[in-house]
């Protein structure tokens, strides 16, 4: 009888050990991910899950030191062949990647998750949490988002305090030069404008294409330009030619880093808001002081 009991104990112990071993094995096998947009790459790094990332698209490696990852093209131009050769478990794609190429990847039996373009901070947060799920970092993501939300709320309170007595500022946020393209409603950058207690002069539109006459007639008090290098310089010069615009008169034309403003991640959203706040209100504070 005691020997039978011992045998049972042993078998229970072995079973538990096997279950534990398998569980550990499963969790230690990380999902191999290919990111097809710099913002997803950045979020994976934020989640400290870069060991899961095996490849990304060009420009995705900026701010990251690991150059051992494979580059599989750019956001809009990927190499299906290269991706297939890496045999990833998951591919994160945006709506900017060619649909034909996405279909091809799926046909090869690869798992592709396509994120829609986020239209608000809530969308960005959902996207972040989804990526965190893929890399088993949900708790970390929740905590991180909590911190970011707190920072945004604190910034919002500061903005509210400063702008209590004023009417909303009219803002024009340029993100393209030829054609002239601006932030329009239903975009996360429009939410940044709202949080700044600003008023986007581009309203009731589904596209951001606009013309100079409209901008001049709407007379923005602040102009943000999120363009690369020379294009930003040229855009600023072009606006400076129109001395009637309030933003030109008060020298409130600001060039902001396109990487920060055009790459939707929770961290970037907060930093973009902070940067814009600093630009707008530091001038006013200085003036008051």
């Amino acid at each position: 009888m005691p020997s039978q009991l011992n045998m049972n104990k042993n078998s229970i112990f072995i079973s538990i050990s096997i279950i534990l071993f398998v569980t550990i094995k499963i969790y230690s096998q990380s999902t191999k991910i290919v990111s097809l947009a710099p913002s997803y790459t950045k979020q994976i790094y934020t989640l400290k899950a870069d060991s899961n990332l095996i490849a990304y698209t060009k420009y995705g490696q900026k701010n990251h030191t690991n150059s051992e990852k494979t580059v599989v093209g750019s956001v809009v131009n990927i190499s299906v062949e290269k991706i297939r050769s890496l045999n990833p478990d998951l591919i994160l794609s945006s709506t900017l990647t060619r649909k034909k190429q996405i279909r091809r990847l799926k046909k090869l039996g690869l798992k592709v998750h396509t994120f829609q373009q986020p239209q608000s901070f809530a969308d960005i947060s959902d996207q972040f949490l989804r990526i965190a799920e893929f890399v088993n970092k949900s708790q970390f993501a929740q905590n991180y988002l909590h911190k970011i939300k707190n920072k945004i709320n604190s910034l919002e309170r500061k903005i509210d305090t400063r702008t209590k007595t004023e009417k909303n500022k009219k803002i024009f946020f340029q993100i393209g030069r030829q054609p002239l393209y601006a932030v329009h409603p239903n975009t996360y950058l429009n939410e940044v404008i709202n949080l700044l207690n600003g008023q986007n002069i581009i309203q009731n539109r589904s596209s951001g294409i606009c013309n100079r006459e409209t901008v001049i007639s709407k007379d923005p008090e602040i102009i943000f330009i999120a363009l690369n290098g020379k294009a930003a310089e040229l855009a600023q010069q072009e606006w400076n030619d129109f001395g009637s615009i309030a933003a030109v008169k008060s020298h409130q034309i600001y060039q902001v880093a396109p990487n920060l403003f055009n790459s939707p991640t929770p961290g970037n959203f907060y930093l973009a808001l902070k940067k814009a706040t600093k630009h707008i209100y530091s001038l006013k504070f200085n003036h008051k002081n």
Partner: protein
Amino acid sequence: MNQKFVKTIIYSLIALIVLLLISLLGISVGAENIPLSTVIKTLFNIENSQLYEDIIINLRLPRVILGFAVGGALSISGLLLQGIFRNPLVEPFTIGISGGASVGISLLTLLNLENIIGFLSLPVSGFLGAILIILLVYKLGIKNNTFRITNILLIGVMISFISSSLVMFIMAISKSKDINTILFWLMGSLEESNLKLILITLFISIFGLIIAFVLSRKLNLFSLGEEEAKSLGLNVERIKRLVYLTASVLTGFCVAVSGVISFVGLIIPHFMRILLGKDNRLLVITSYLIGGAFLILSDTLARTVIAPLQLPVGVITGLIGGISFIYLLNRKNVNIFG
């Protein structure tokens, strides 16, 4: 044996060998380095690696087949149109077909019908747009039961301008992701994942070759001039219409599947004319084979030169085709239609 027949056979065989060699190159070269021996083993199913099978059989081979079908079809369309228009600048896209397809694709994208109807809606809408323009140009080009060649050409050019304005208008009111879809399509690409569509294109392309070959002898008579051809008993009106419709439908189908790939239909027929003379029977077959080989080669270069990024295939067709054509034209010092 007839000397011309022997010449046709010999040159066609040479063109076929060139095509096969370039096809092998297209299958062997890509963003991923795979040894030639592995490529051949995979092709003949001697090596069973899922990875190599995916890359060689499922990715590269369909591109090569589509390149052959589209390149061949565009070349014979160009040859046929240059034949009836007797104008060296005419190519399949001059007569507005690509414009019609572009408007079809742009409208579909703007109205977001692709997500509702399905992915085949893109080639279908492109083809419908092309067919609409073909019929419109055809209708406008006929007066007093005469198919007026010069008018057709001018109407086609005007429709191209109108279409390009319409596409720009649609792009101006589209969302950025839709603009991408339209732009990518306009750039042209052999990246097609639907094997059935590729095989249908191949079938239509070969069917077009057969019709073009049947028409080629009559096109030889047409090259003497309309009056001469009439006096030799040729039903000129019927030939003009048949040639126009064959070339247009072939082009419309190619554009619908692979987007706008220019230069192939312009350069290849001239290239073959400079090398082999003016006999359309020989030109139809060799242009078809060399056109296919040229597009496969261009696509191979487009996807490898700056890999993993890919160039639009039209960039390569324009560069290689244009430069080698000018070189050959100056070297041989010939007058193409003279």
